[in-house]
């Protein structure tokens, strides 16, 4: 395993015991012609620094809505969400976007790399958004080595890599800005068992080094890698 970026203690503010994420009576209602759909209904929980949480539930239980709320891609109809002590309800779109860029790392099921950019450019993309400057290849290589990607692949395009390699690049991209939380949406859902296990070992290692991870999955074997599981059914947390 390569050198992982050191977490900066001040990212959560002066109170290091402060939860990195708080949901307080959060509800999300989608108004539809056939009647309102309550995707989330009074959801409350806290995520402490360094936790590894999996969110499980059947299809339509509200997992994706919850993930969107955690990733500041959606806003609640009721209740409050705090990310690193900041209430997201009153934030503008630009502020929420900056929060996503600086505090949250996203890992998707289908990797979602940019086909027009090479691996180094893909990984450093969020860093470029933050700094407004060009590619910093050294920082990109450092993080790519930390996720165990071979140096010879750095200048390739995503389509030239295997699924497992692409997901490692996606993990590196999510880590590049030292986020407070890593949000993963079925990170092994598009990988074979062995490659998936490799990615989960990487996640576990990241968590052991201090990265807070929240992972949405429907696979109980993958959920076993986490240290806490939130079960959600019909928009309510049941355990």
């Amino acid at each position: 395993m390569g050198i992982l970026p050191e977490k900066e203690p001040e990212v959560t503010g002066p109170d290091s015991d402060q939860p990195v994420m708080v949901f307080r009576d959060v509800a999300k209602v989608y108004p539809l012609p056939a009647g309102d759909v309550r995707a989330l209904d009074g959801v409350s929980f806290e995520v402490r620094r360094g936790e590894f949480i999996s969110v499980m539930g059947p299809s339509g239980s509200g997992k994706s809505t919850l993930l969107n709320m955690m990733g500041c891609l959606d806003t609640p109809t009721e209740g409050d969400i705090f990310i690193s002590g900041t209430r997201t309800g009153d934030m503008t779109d630009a502020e929420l976007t900056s929060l996503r860029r600086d505090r949250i790392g996203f890992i998707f099921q289908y990797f979602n790399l940019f086909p027009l950019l090479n691996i180094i450019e893909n990984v450093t993309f969020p860093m470029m958004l933050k700094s407004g400057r060009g590619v910093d290849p050294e920082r990109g290589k450092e993080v790519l080595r930390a996720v165990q990607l071979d140096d010879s692949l750095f200048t390739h395009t995503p389509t030239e890599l295997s699924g497992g390699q692409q997901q490692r690049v996606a993990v590196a991209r999510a880590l590049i800005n030292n986020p407070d939380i890593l949000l993963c949406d079925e990170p092994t859902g598009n990988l074979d068992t062995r490659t998936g296990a490799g990615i989960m070992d990487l996640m576990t290692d990241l968590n052991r080094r201090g990265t807070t991870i929240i992972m949405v999955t429907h696979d109980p074997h993958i959920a076993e890698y986490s240290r806490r599981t939130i079960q959600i059914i019909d928009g309510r947390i049941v355990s």
Partner: protein
Amino acid sequence: MIFWEIAKRNIRIHLLRSSLAMLGIVIGVVAIASMGILGNGMVLSVSESLRTVGDSVIVTPHAGGGGGHFGGGGGSSSAIVLSEQDFQQIKRVSAPNSAIPVLQTTDRMKLGVGKDDIVALIYGLDQDDVPGLLTLESGDYARSTSGCLVGSTFAKDHNVKVGSRISIGTDGSRGSLRVTGIIEERGMSFDVSTDSAVVATQDWFKNTYNRDDYDSIVIKVKNLDDIENVKTAIEKQMNRREDTVDVMDTRKVMESIFEAFGQITTFVSAIGGISMLVAGVSILNIMMMSVTERVKEIGIMRSIGAQKREVMAMFLYEAMILGVVGSIIGGILSLLGGYAISSLMLQTTKYLFIPSSLIHIVYGMTFGIIICIICGIYPAWRAANLNPIDALRHE
């Protein structure tokens, strides 16, 4: 900057599509610039042929009736004339600019034994004024009252040479004149149109047609800025009580002509502009396609922290690249187009490489770039305002 890089690469991977959209811009720029170059060439060409008369003020008897003097000139083409007194007054107020009295009539004449009579315009000008007004292509100015000059078209049409004799009047009743010189072609002019005329001396004219008055007076203004003042001074002096003279400022006439040419140029350039608008629609179309194809990519960008303005900039860069590259190619081709169209229509390319022509290429290019950016705004705005959740779900 990464968004600039993405815009460039997206154009490169869709090279054919981008090239076709660019082609529209190229055509638009060429159409606008070539028409502008042609129009400017026409203005300059006419301006050059009128240059010699742009410094004149022409005074004629008032044509509205009531003014002027009814003269008794035998062959005068007009019954309304300017008297010697009028001339002296005009000469005084126009000083120090030279005032040239002009007599004119049409008469029959014979150009050699056995040849048919023709009818042509005859001017009577003071021998001293002629060198300042007319330039000769061959021969010399008339030194005696029996000498005359002829216009270049007249000489060519009737095979008249220096030394030829012209019998004036029916069966030479008004005597004959010997051609001493051929006048250089003057083209369209407002003072004296000599190309198809005979220019005799004032003394011969007055004696032959029994005239002691004038048909018009040409004032050659030395300083062009004084034209307006000279015109005003003459009008003030001569039209004090009633309108006795009409005063024409040739520069004003030329300005009207140039204005008309300018309008024609604008009109044909506007037709070129329509092709640019069509090209703009094509840019809008491919930009919309680009947004539709990249909805998921936009969703990923927005979810990992790209601001709306950054997504918008990425698409505007793409439209701008298409516009700038298309306009540069169009600008280069406009030079060739301008060269071809000037050669064909003006028979000269000397008006091409001058700022007033080349500026039309700049206009065409600027319009091309602006159209591309304007047509990129809506697709870019649409991309920037996609809901990140919906965009991420897009397949």
